[in-house]
């Protein structure tokens, strides 16, 4: 594993998007994500995708920051496309209710409906990715927990997220050190070992990691109790920000986009699907 991996490469640029409060960004992210997850209309989905790519530009996100993620996403989407074709080549026909075959491979007929369904699905999956990236790469981790609390998540659950972000690098470093310490005690960890041995060996690392974490949980929760955590029903946040006019604007625009998506489905398509075949 790569010990040098960074959590998020949060970039400190000062753009319109960075200046939005964490709560705003979280709410907008959720509204827009919901919109693309709801809609099965490729026009809406592509529109949303173009919008989010423009936003990415505005946030000065560099390609190098997201290259690796894109590779993973593409691998995932292509595998999904292939498997889902072989599992159910008629899925498109079932959804759109017509059948326009244009070719045949190994006895399976290729239909335009299936192509359209799979292309739509491809973009539907893909279009949430830039939204997520913008949110992750422009939100200061410190602001994240207070934003969750700001949108109504219980503050204790929100603080659990803050603790995860705080201690992830520590856990990662511990894991690496334990891995090395075990090798120094004589543990063979090469990939040549048999399946069962490799399984046993990974336990030899996971067990100390967990037990040292249990000790640490005790110390941290004592430290938090001593400083009054969870004594009242609410708490304030050092990092929370007041909503500015820009925040309100962003929220309104996102809400309108969601309503628009729903309206397109209800009034124009009369279903979640856009059906060009009838």
């Amino acid at each position: 594993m790569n010990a040098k991996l960074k959590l998020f490469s949060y970039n400190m640029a000062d753009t319109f998007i960075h200046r939005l409060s964490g709560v705003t960004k979280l709410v907008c992210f959720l509204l827009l994500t919901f919109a693309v997850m709801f809609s099965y209309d490729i026009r809406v989905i592509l529109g949303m995708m173009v919008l989010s790519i423009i936003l990415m530009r505005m946030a000065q996100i560099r390609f190098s920051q997201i290259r690796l993620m894109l590779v993973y996403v593409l691998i995932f989407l292509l595998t999904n496309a292939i498997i889902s074709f072989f599992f159910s080549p008629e899925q498109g026909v079932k959804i759109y209710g017509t059948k326009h075959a244009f070719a045949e491979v190994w006895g399976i007929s290729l239909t335009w409906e299936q192509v359209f369904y799979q292309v739509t699905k491809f973009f539907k999956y893909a279009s949430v990715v830039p939204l997520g990236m913008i949110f992750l790469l422009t939100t200061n981790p410190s602001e994240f927990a207070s934003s969750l609390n700001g949108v109504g998540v219980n503050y204790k659950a929100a603080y659990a997220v803050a603790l995860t972000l705080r201690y992830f690098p520590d856990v990662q470093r511990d894991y690496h050190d334990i891995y090395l310490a075990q090798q120094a005690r004589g543990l063979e960890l090469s990939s040549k070992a048999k399946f069962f041995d490799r399984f046993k060996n990974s336990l030899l690392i996971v067990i100390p990691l967990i037990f040292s974490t249990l000790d640490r949980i005790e110390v941290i929760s004592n430290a938090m109790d001593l400083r009054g955590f969870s004594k009242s029903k609410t708490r304030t946040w050092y990092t929370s920000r007041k909503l500015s006019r820009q925040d309100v604007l962003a929220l309104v625009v996102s809400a309108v986009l969601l309503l628009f998506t729903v309206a397109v489905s209800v009034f124009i398509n009369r279903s979640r699907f856009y059906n060009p075949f009838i």
Partner: protein
Amino acid sequence: MSEPAIIEFDHFTFQYYSQAEPTLHDINLKIYPGEKILIVGPSGSGKSTLGHCLNGLIPFAYRGEIQGSLKIQGLETRDLDIFKLSKVVGTVLQDSDGQFVGLTVGEDIAFALENDNVPTAQMRERVAKVAQMVDMDSLLSSSPFELSGGQKQRTSLAGVMIDDVDILLFDEPLANLDPATGKTAIEIIDDIHKRSHKTILIIEHRLEDVLHRGVDRVIVINDGHIIADLNAHELVSSAVLVDNGIREPLYVTALKYAGVKVTSEMKPGHITTLSTELSGHALQLWHEKVKTAAPENRNPSVLAMENVSFSYDGKRPVLQEINFDIREGEMVSVVGKNGAGKSTLSKLLCGFEKEDRGRILYRGEDIRDKSIKERAEIIGLVMQNPNQMISKPMIFDEVALGLRMRQVPEEQIAERVDKVLKVCGLAPFKSWPISALSYGQKKRVTIASILVLDPKILILDEPTAGQDFRHYTEIMEFLVEINRMGVTVILITHDMHLMLEYTPRAIVLAGGRKIADTAASVVLTDAEVIREANLKETSLFALAQLAGIPEGTRFVQGFIDYERGLKNR
């Protein structure tokens, strides 16, 4: 004192749920507002337990049985809860990493205010003010990984001070701090005491370091009983420290060697108050008498680094151009500031990390291609953090693990493990689970688990952290013994006493570079090195000056040789 006590233990006894015996017995103790108290005692004597009773972790977080009474500001603590107590008692835990819960310094300082629903704007103002008091105002948005040990400690301090509590409790504030940062920590605590008149309790093994600034009383605990409650001068001149296995200040030991009877009239509690009118002459005589004879080690080289550089992230160098050569059978210490790269150096030697440039030689041969496992046959490393090494729930199995992996027959294992457990003072706990041990005891388990493998070269990263004098001496004497049989020992330490006493040679790191490599006694008298590497001048040196002995270095060396002579007899 006419004022009522702020803390009052009355026939107080406490027994942990899982223990067969009480840990605190019949404690009677009164502490008055504005006092500054130091609590000392051997490892496992119940110091932290006493602290937990004050801040409410007992009985809130640790189950057990309480008898007698404990009143804070006149209120019985068992009627309060931990939140009410946290308004009165602020605790700085030993583990500054565990204490640091925020993602940044600012958030961490603000933590208590956040929980109190203080509005954000007001919170920022107060954080800025407190941060300034501990000199952290320029680092408010730094994350814990970017901070040194000392800076984390300052953050913890600010985090409890922000709540304006009346009592501050510090549990081993100096463990893991380099000597200079430790000194600063004591100064900050003292400044807070002088400025705010808060009641302050410090639990600490490093007696001499705490006595750098004045304390009103020292309370000695052993085995759950209060053994003594004296001022520093009386304590140091009594037999209490020696009897309870606590390290007395070095300059006091030197005075005793010189045949001086240390009395409380000499004000020996602090080196700054010590009067040497009566003893100066005796010291001079003794100094002349001591023969210094450090035989030079002329064995062939066993481990060397040549121009080694390393960085974790490829950007910030952690070690630069390191060169050294360690001879077979040497005992060497590596010292330097927090974050200087000492632990990193040990990881490179064991192959945990790979050097970016340069070579590491074992008996003159480059070991670049040797795997971690192969290196481990030669070099044993005891890591700084015991939790990273422990992988079995039971003590015996943990120590036996390495032997089992090397397919040693089970009867031999039992014998070897028993012997090592005895050396490390763990024999009584042989069948205990590791989770029931104190920090110091866990550290000894990891030392045992490496010692049992009989490595040719032994590297110990902070072996004495959290250890009391008695156990520390036992372990160190064992190391000396195996060192005589030819094992090379490298100690990474912040403990200047340890370096002076046991390692003739010291390698000093600062900012990733080697800045000195010479006799330990010379290191500690070189003002430039001391400043650059955050070390601290030994009190022996100050004593020599007080007694009008000009060659301070030789005086220090003489002390060490004399002590070694005593031990070898």
